């Protein structure tokens, strides 16, 4: 029988270009902040999972478990890096959840971290492409933006949708980030701004893409056994945690628009949590590109295929709408320090469930769902969080 798992601490660094801070600086900052927020002694943490995608490529640094443990003063803890491309953070959280749910460990921590700004843009592009098939996709000169652009074009053609309607998702995210002190961009963007930004890979424009940045976010989790020994003012439970893979390369999928991984993982996580899609009060979708945000809304059942964009236009993604989404700015405006994103998403939901979301607060938010994607949804990680008190 799996034990119940709770989030008892959360911490993060602001997402941005941190020239003065290294990968380990950011990871340690977030981790210690989460531990402090949990009000526990760091020696209570029995396992540490470090979610990160590109430390090997960009920093020449692997072995992040031992590195972070050493620099955070937690030597001895069971620690290792978890990698699942852009879903590394979510995957690391899944590991942390499994660890605590199994009872092998009672209190664990997870930190998602990425340091992207030390490298040249073309090298970051190449490093991100390690998430794709090196021989038969990267070999063609495709970039990540390009692969998503292929899907975007298919969507627009199949459903006769105008690009502006999908691009509007970015406008929404920027609006939501204005009140998020952790966000990389806190300035609103208009649809005009988005549609006149330079083409990166047709039809995707610059302001439809999540930015490059540095960041780290961390969570402390514990199970019921830990709570029995340490009284704690807990508000958030990890009610569901699931991972699914899809055919790695989008062009090889029978239906490139299907988002099969999201459906599968969401079903499993929601079943575990005992909820349905309509029960979700606050949603975090992996909008590395605007089209992914729209496709996810459809895959999760919030709109029929080809109609996800209407939710944006009709204001249903706002805190007062039918399905408040990316209320802290999402990947587009809060930022997307790749390995950190999966944790940032849950960090954003935790703040909502704790009532700490400020002007973006969703009244009475009780259930949150976060979807973290690896590659072009080759890996999908879904977490469901529930306010317990």
């Amino acid at each position, binding site marked *: 029988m799996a034990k119940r798992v709770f989030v008892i601490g959360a911490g993060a660094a602001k997402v941005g270009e941190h020239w003065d801070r290294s990968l380990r600086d950011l990871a340690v900052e977030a981790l210690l902040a989460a531990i402090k927020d949990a009000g526990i002694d760091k020696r209570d943490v029995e396992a540490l999972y470090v979610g990160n995608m590109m430390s090997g*490529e960009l920093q020449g640094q692997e072995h992040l478990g031992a590195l972070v443990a050493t620099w955070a003063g937690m030597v001895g803890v069971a620690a290792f890096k978890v990698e699942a491309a852009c879903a590394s953070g979510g995957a690391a959280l899944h590991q942390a959840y499994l660890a605590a749910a199994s009872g092998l460990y009672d209190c664990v921590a997870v930190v998602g971290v990425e340091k992207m700004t030390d490298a*040249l*843009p*073309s*090298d970051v*592009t*190449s*490093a991100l*492409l390690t998430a794709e098939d*090196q*021989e*038969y*996709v*990267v*070999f*063609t*000169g*495709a*970039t990540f*933006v*390009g*692969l998503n*652009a*292929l*899907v975007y*074009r*298919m969507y627009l*053609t199949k459903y006769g949708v105008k690009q502006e309607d999908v691009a509007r998702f970015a406008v929404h995210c920027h609006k939501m980030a204005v009140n998020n002190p952790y966000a990389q961009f806190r300035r609103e963007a208009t649809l005009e701004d988005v549609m006149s930004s*330079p*083409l*990166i*890979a*047709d*039809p*995707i424009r610059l302001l439809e893409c999540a930015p490059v940045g540095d960041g780290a976010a961390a969570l402390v989790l514990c199970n019921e056994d830990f709570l029995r020994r340490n009284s704690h003012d807990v508000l958030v439970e990890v009610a569901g945690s699931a991972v699914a893979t899809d*055919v790695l*390369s989008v*062009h*090889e999928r*029978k239906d*490139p628009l299907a988002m099969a991984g999201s459906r599968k993982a969401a079903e499993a996580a929601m079943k575990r949590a005992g909820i349905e899609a309509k029960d979700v009060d606050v949603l975090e979708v992996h909008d590395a590109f605007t089209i992914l945000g729209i496709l996810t809304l459809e895959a999760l059942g919030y709109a029929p295929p080809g109609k996800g964009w209407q939710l944006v236009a009709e204001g249903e993604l706002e805190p007062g709408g039918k399905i408040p989404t990316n209320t802290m700015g999402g990947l587009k405006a809060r930022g997307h320090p790749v390995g950190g994103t999966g944790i940032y998403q849950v960090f954003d939901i935790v703040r909502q469930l704790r009532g700490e979301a400020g002007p973006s607060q969703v009244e009475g938010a009780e259930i949150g769902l976060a979807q973290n994607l690896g590659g072009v949804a080759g890996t999908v990680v879904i977490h469901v969080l529930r306010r317990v008190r």
Partner: protein
Amino acid sequence: MVWAESVPRVWRERAKKYRLLGGKCPSCGSLVYPHRQVCPHCGREGLQPIELPRRGRVISYTVIRHPPSDFAGKEPYVVAIVELEGGARVLAQLTDVRPEEVKEGMEVEAVFRRYREQSPNGIIEYGIKFRPA
């Protein structure tokens, strides 16, 4: 990047890249590229090697304007999902065509071209691109 200058890697894949060597799944009938042992769709083993047809049509395409480091200087170029006669889908560059001329559904044919070089004095990686038929 280490893999970018690996000679054995290129040598190993050459038949698949030069001759469009795909695989036919004896169980579900899927045609995939490149050839491999296990079918990604049904999970069964034993795909038969087959040189895929050299004509197809464009399913979707994009124009890369900010390439990765090993394609620097080649932009803008078109990357497309091409569905070959028979149904196998490949990802490839389109060539001998201006980005504005590319249309979904366009008929294309395979040609043998240079994709990239492993550093300015490294070996040249050749492969299949597609041009308007």
